[in-house]
Structures are given as structure tokens and as C-alpha cells.
């Protein structure tokens, strides 16, 4: 077991990352050890990134322990770069985090400065030139080769012709160098896409109560909906983010099945969502900013207002039904309110998709019933099919008797087999077992859908399953 990460106190007493745990224990008696959990670290970084969205909408993760913010055009909101940095440090210090920050002309430069800068420099250009070659983050051998060649800083490297560097240390080294110097683009991969409509409010004094926050949210929804109305759009997805003064943020999202500009409806859905949260919204030391984003817009025509005020009731008859579906989906979760959609396959269990009701329907039709014929597909389908024990008169014949859920059923009537082959063109081995389906009726008049999984020449002893029950 080795040390994956340490804090400043541990660094001060001489522990290093990569040291065996036993050595560290021998060196320091009372060592507090926590198992390394990269997934939790990632989650924590993600939450910090969410909290940093207050400074700039463009926040990129620099795993495992970095965040890159594109503050171009946003720093004046905090009174300049230095004040913005001070604000970041103050907030993150409350969470007990030690911070190393740097500002750079490009994302790569800022990142390298934050991670590798050891000596102060008069300006950014000089600072970059004074960085060690390790800042290029090449492979260990390439870095060693550079150092052995006497090239210790980025400045040393930059003074040589680029073609020579590429020839001697590889194209990667040249590319990394150009990126660091700002000659090649170093695009940022922001964590959050920009929502088209945003309304936000900042508070001089943090809001301590959720009720107040909800009231402010209602105002924000009103603002956002005014914005939507001007564009002739309706929102399908609304996301409220509550920024706490200690730097954390909590997002709550709702979704509607149809574009809407109804403040009442949106607030009802938000209330429904907040009521159903497993861990309720916790103001902590108070919310100092609330932001409402509408990431998904769809066209929605203007509504006619009545002369005496108030909107004319929409001609959409299903409006109440849509609202019910939205409300239930908000309370239970999006995937719990579903509609059945057809899928183009003959494999019975794949022929229907249960999709969230909010999703748009697929342009496929259901199979039409054949006139005068009884249904060939069951009303209830078991997925996965349930194994049964079958007695057949001849091995590849229809079932004579079967036992399902510890109950024996004598087959009185049957129809079949309906042979359904596996989708061999989708399988790597071009194989798959063929199923022989039988519609059977037992002595009590119950109708079942049974199948034998595999023909006798495909498999020595094929198993029987019940796949569904007919009405």
C-alpha cells in the first residue's frame, strides 16, 4: 500500500506521495489514513466545479485535482482578476482546501503555471519561460532526455528552432511547447454547456430560509418566462441552482412534456420536486446566489391575452393530462412515467420500448390485428421469460403438460409452433438459438405463451420457458 495523496502537514514532516504506507507509519506515529477513492474524488471535484460556475459559465475539470475557469470578460464583475482570485480562495478556504492558482493567457499556460511555477516572474511571458521542462508533461523518458540535453526550462527550449525539437524529442514535445507558449490553440472542454436562457439573482446577505429562496425562484421563473415569450419559445427543462455561501451548489431540475411558459406550472413542478427530495435543500450558512437556467427550448406560439387580463385558456385539451404526467414524472422520476413505443424487430421482448412519457414518439406504427384471428401476442409479457418444466409427447412436439410456479397445467388446446429465429445478423457468432412458440390453453381456460429455446439440432436438451399470458 502506497500513499496516493497527502496534505500540507504531512508534507511538512517529510512524507511524500508514492511512499509505502508502512514507511510513513514508521516515520510518523499518529498518521490519519483514509483509503483512496478516485470516484469520490471525482465527485467532489465535480461539485466544486459546479460551485465555481458562479464565476464563469465555462468551467473545465482538470482531473484529479484541478479546475480551469475561463474568466475572460467575467473578472470585472468581481472588480478585477485579483479580487476574483481572492473570492475563490476565501470560499474554498472555508471548505478547508489549499489552493494554488495561476492566471494565464491560455488554459494550458494557466494550468502549467498553477502546477509547476516555483519562482516569481515579472510578467506571464517570463513566468512561462522560467517553468521547468516537466511542465510540458511529456513522458518521463522524454523529459529526462530534455534535461540531459541541458534544456532545463521552457525558455531554453523555446529559444531553439521548433523543427529541431520535433526532430529530436518528437512531435508531441513540439506541440506541447507551442500550446504552452500560446502558438497553438488549447481549447477548453467546459463541463457545462451554456443554457440559452438564464436568470440569476445575487444577495448581499445570504438567504437563510428555503421558503425565501423559493420565492426568489418564482421571480426568476417569471423573468425567464418573459425572456422566453420574447423569443417565441417555451421551456422544456428548467434547472435551478442554489449557490451556498460556503462554495457548494445544489441543482434541482424539472422537465415538462411540452414547451411551457406557465409560471404557475413550473413552480408547482419545482415544489413537487423539492418535496420529493431524499435530502432536502439545506441552506447551510445561506444561499448567496440563485440561478435559473432553461437549457432546453422549443418553439411555442404567442398566447392571446383576454381584454380584461389573463391568458385565454389554451385550446389544447390534453393540457391537464400533460401537467399530470409532468407532475408524476417530477415526483417519481422521469423514467417512472412511461409510454409504450414500438420497435422494429421480431424478437418479442424487444418489440416494445418503455420510454419516458416526456420523450417524443417514434414514427413507427403498431402491428394491426388480423381480421378474424385470435391475438398471437400476449397481454402480459415476462422479461426475462420464466423457466417451466414441460412434458411433450414427442421431443420436438407441442407441450402436453407443463409446470409453472409449482402448479401443473394440462394443455387442452394449442397452436404452433411459431418459429422465431435469433437475430443472427446482429451477433458476432452469427448464431443464436431459434425459439418455437406455442399458444396453449389449459383446462381452466387460461391461455399462455410458451416457447422451447432451441431446436433439437441446435442444442441437445433445449429448455422451455413461459414468455407471456394471453387475455
Amino acid at each position, binding site marked *: 500500500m502506497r500513499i496516493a495523496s497527502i496534505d500540507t502537514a504531512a508534507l511538512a514532516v517529510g512524507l511524500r506521495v508514492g511512499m509505502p504506507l508502512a514507511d510513513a507509519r514508521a516515520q510518523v506515529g499518529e498518521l490519519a489514513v483514509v483509503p483512496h477513492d478516485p470516484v469520490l474524488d471525482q465527485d467532489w471535484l465535480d461539485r466544486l466545479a459546479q460551485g465555481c460556475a458562479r464565476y464563469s459559465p465555462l468551467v473545465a475539470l482538470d482531473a484529479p485535482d484541478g479546475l480551469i475557469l475561463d474568466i475572460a470578460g467575467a473578472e470585472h464583475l468581481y472588480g478585477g482578476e485579483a479580487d476574483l482570485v481572492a473570492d475563490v480562495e476565501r470560499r474554498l478556504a472555508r471548505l478547508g482546501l489549499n489552493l494554488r492558482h495561476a492566471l494565464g493567457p491560455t488554459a494550458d499556460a494557466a494550468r502549467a503555471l498553477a502546477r509547476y511555477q516555483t519562482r516569481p516572474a515579472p510578467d506571464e511571458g517570463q513566468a512561462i519561460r522560467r517553468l521547468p521542462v516537466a511542465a510540458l508533461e511529456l513522458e518521463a523518458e522524454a523529459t529526462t532526455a530534455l534535461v540531459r540535453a541541458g534544456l532545463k526550462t521552457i525558455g531554453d527550449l523555446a529559444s531553439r528552432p521548433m523543427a529541431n525539437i520535433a526532430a529530436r524529442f518528437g512531435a508531441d514535445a513540439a506541440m506541447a511547447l507551442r500550446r504552452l507558449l500560446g502558438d497553438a490553440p488549447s481549447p477548453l472542454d467546459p463541463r457545462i454547456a451554456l443554457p440559452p436562457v438564464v436568470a440569476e439573482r445575487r444577495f448581499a446577505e445570504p438567504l437563510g430560509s428555503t421558503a425565501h429562496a423559493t420565492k426568489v425562484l418564482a421571480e426568476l421563473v417569471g423573468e425567464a418566462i418573459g425572456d422566453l415569450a420574447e423569443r417565441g419559445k417555451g421551456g422544456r427543462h428548467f434547472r435551478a441552482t442554489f449557490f451556498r455561501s460556503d462554495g457548494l451548489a445544489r441543482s434541482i431540475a424539472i422537465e415538462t412534456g411540452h414547451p411551457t411558459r406557465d409560471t404557475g406550472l413550473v413552480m408547482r413542478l419545482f415544489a413537487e420536486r423539492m418535496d420529493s427530495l431524499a435530502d432536502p435543500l439545506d441552506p447551510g450558512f445561506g444561499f448567496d446566489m440563485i440561478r435559473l437556467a432553461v437549457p432546453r427550448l422549443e418553439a411555442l406560439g404567442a398566447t392571446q391575452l383576454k381584454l380584461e387580463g389573463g391568458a385565454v385558456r389554451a385550446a389544447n385539451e390534453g393540457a391537464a393530462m400533460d401537467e399530470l404526467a409532468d407532475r408524476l414524472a417530477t415526483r*417519481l422520476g422521469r423514467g417512472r*412515467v*412511461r409510454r409504450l413505443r414500438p420497435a422494429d424487430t421480431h424478437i418479442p421482448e424487444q418489440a416494445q420500448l418503455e420510454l419516458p412519457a416526456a420523450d417524443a414518439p417514434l414514427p413507427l406504427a403498431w402491428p394491426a390485428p388480423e381480421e378474424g384471428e385470435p*391475438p398471437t*401476442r400476449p397481454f402480459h409479457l415476462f422479461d426475462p421469460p420464466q423457466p417451466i418444466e414441460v412434458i411433450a409427447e414427442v421431443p420436438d412436439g407441442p407441450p402436453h403438460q407443463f409446470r409453472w410456479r409449482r402448479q401443473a397445467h394440462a394443455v387442452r388446446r*394449442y397452436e404452433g409452433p411459431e418459429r422465431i429465429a435469433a437475430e443472427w445478423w446482429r451477433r458476432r457468432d452469427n448464431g443464436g438459438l431459434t425459439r418455437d412458440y406455442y399458444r396453449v390453453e389449459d383446462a*381452466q*381456460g387460461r391461455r399462455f405463451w410458451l416457447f422451447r429455446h432451441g431446436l433439437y439440432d441446435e442444442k441437445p436438451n433445449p429448455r422451455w420457458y413461459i414468455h407471456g399470458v394471453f*387475455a
Partner: protein
Amino acid sequence: MRESSPILAGLRQRIARLATSGGFESRPAGGWLESGHARFDAAIGGGLAAGRTHEFFAADALDATSAAAFAALIALRTPGKAPLIWLRTTDAGKRTGHIYAPGIAELGGDPDRLLLVETADPKMLLACANDAIRCAGSAAVIVESWGKFPLFDLTAGRRLALGARDAGTTLLMLRLNAVPAPSVAETRWSVAAAPSQELEANAPGAPAFALELLRWRGGPAGTRWRLDWNHDEKCFGPNAGDAALSGALLPLPARRAMASHGAAAA
């Protein structure tokens, strides 16, 4: 009759008024979910009354599909595109099977009208049913439960029934693997599968249902029915396979063991 005290007389009059027109059950229904079988509908006053609660008990755990299909078909028979809201718990798919849309389409129903709502537990099921029932515009609301449903007591049933009456929605309670108990339902049925009319080569025929009317607020209970579903006409018809029983109204004592009727009918 002369009353000694005018107050007493006033109260008596009030009670008499309440008794003739007061209870919500005695109001005329706004419409009916019809089966399409004229004699069956006539025998229960025009069909299943809209805006009321109707209970369907599966006669046996294995008859769950028959009960579910009967409730779904009678709701999907209604013309138009009004959705059928079907509430069930998450474990229902494992127990009775997933509702299979191609099968519904082959029965002549429109699966696009189904709105499935899955809840984690019966408590949430009841809460969502209360919401769904208060939303006008659905063909019907089916609430599927398995086994005893202690939360669905008389109070809960009455709350649902009042909500259904106010919004004019029809509530179909699907009680699978449960024993019929007193409730505020307008009608209560026991549904079982019935042997179908045999087709060529001994193939099973159209869906057949054996129903027993366990309770009806508007009249006597205890009648039994054998109905076949005709998916071409989208209606229930008399059971063609059993001439003697064909749509016949068989008055039977209301307190008969339910389990026997599969055998009795056969």
C-alpha cells in the same frame, strides 16, 4: 302527520331529502363505459358508470391477466384518444408480467393511449392515484395492486371515489390475488379466464372471460357472465362456444364461493 315540534319536523324533512337525493352514489352517472354486449350493459344499468369506482378482483392469482385485460379493454373501447392511466408498483412486472403493447394492439386497443406510472410502494401508488383521479380527461384510471392492500381502506376508497366523482373520471381498481372486501365501489367483479371457442386444429380462440358481479349499488348482484372479446368489432359478445350459457343471465345466490365458477362454467 302532525309533529309536536316544528324543529323535529324540519329535521325529519331534511333527512327525507337527503335519503332521496343526497348521497353521491344516487346521482345519475355522467356516462358509461360500455362493453358492447347489449344484455350485459342493460343488466347493470347501461355499463360501468363513469365517474365511479369499479373493482375487478382476479378470481385466482393466475387470472390476473384476464382481470387486467378486461379492465383495459373496456376502457380502451371508448372512442377518441383520451389516455388510459395505469398505475402499478415496480414489482408488478415481475409478478404478473409487463404490459405488452403488441398484444394490446392485436386486441384492437391503441397502445399509444396507455400512460404507465410505476411507483415504488403501495403508499405512493395511492398518492399518485389520488392525483390521477382528480385530473379530468382520461378514459379511465387503472390502479393495479397485488395481495392485501391495507392502505386502501374505506377512508382511502371514499377519498378516491369523491375525487373520481368531482372530476368525472372512472377509477378501475385492479385487485390481484386479493379477497373481496367491503368498499365504496359502484360495482365489484370477480374475473377469471374462460375456455375459448376452439378454432381449426384445436387452436385456442378469441379471449374469453368469466365474470361474476359480486356487488352492484344499483341492483342485485350475483349474476355471472361469459363474454368473448371480438377484436374486429372492438366489443364484448356472448361466449360462442357455450350455447347453454350464451350470454344468459344466471341468477345465483350472492354468497357463493368464487373459486368454483371456473369449473361450474366449463
